[in-house]
């Protein structure tokens, strides 16, 4: 079954607005990563975050492992934030399960 579910599937924001992306997973995760995928394809690791809250710049990731959920908050969005954001979990069997992503479009 679906190991990782992301919501919303797509999101359109006005520049300057905040975004909240959700990730829910069905198995116990020993590791969770948030990625940004450039339109050209490269996946950039944003957070490696087994549990708790982490910040980098305008991004905040909060993971509550025992509730099997994580969120990615983008504050003061910019047009360069446009792209697809993926959540992926590792379940301890060397498999890494990805969600289907949230496509973010930030318009000026």
């Amino acid at each position, binding site marked *: 079954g679906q190991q990782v579910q992301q919501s919303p599937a797509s999101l359109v924001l006005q520049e300057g607005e905040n975004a909240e992306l959700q990730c829910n997973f069905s198995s116990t995760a*020993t*590791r969770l*990563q948030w*990625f940004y995928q450039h339109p*050209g*394809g*490269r*996946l*950039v*690791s944003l957070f*490696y975050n087994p549990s708790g809250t982490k910040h980098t710049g305008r991004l905040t990731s909060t993971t509550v492992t025992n509730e099997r959920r994580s969120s990615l908050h983008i504050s003061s969005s910019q047009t360069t934030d446009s792209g*697809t954001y*993926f959540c*992926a979990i*590792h379940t*301890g069997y*060397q*498999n*890494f*399960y*990805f969600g*289907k*992503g949230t496509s973010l479009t930030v318009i000026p």
Partner: protein
Amino acid sequence: NSKVIQTPRYLVKGQGQKAKMRCIPEKGHPVVFWYQQNKNNEFKFLINFQNQEVLQQIDMTEKRFSAECPSNSPCSLEIQSSEAGDSALYLCASSLDRDAEQFFGPGTRLTVL
């Protein structure tokens, strides 16, 4: 930022042809992963290595796909006889450990005509 290198960036093959792509992991990363991402943003794990040894691979990889990570050479993923359904973005990632943070290359976009 990731220093994983993948070549070529684009690959176009006819059905039945071989398709080979390469990956140079980040220096010092002994673990390498290959994933397939289709046009619906579905990722599929294919195979992973620790140094030159296969850790895990899926059934699809065992049949038409072959992969290796020889010492002092790029890792490679080869599809022996390409099918239309193999058209996808093939992503290579490397990490310090099988459970550690993974860093991805830019991918090889394969189109099978």
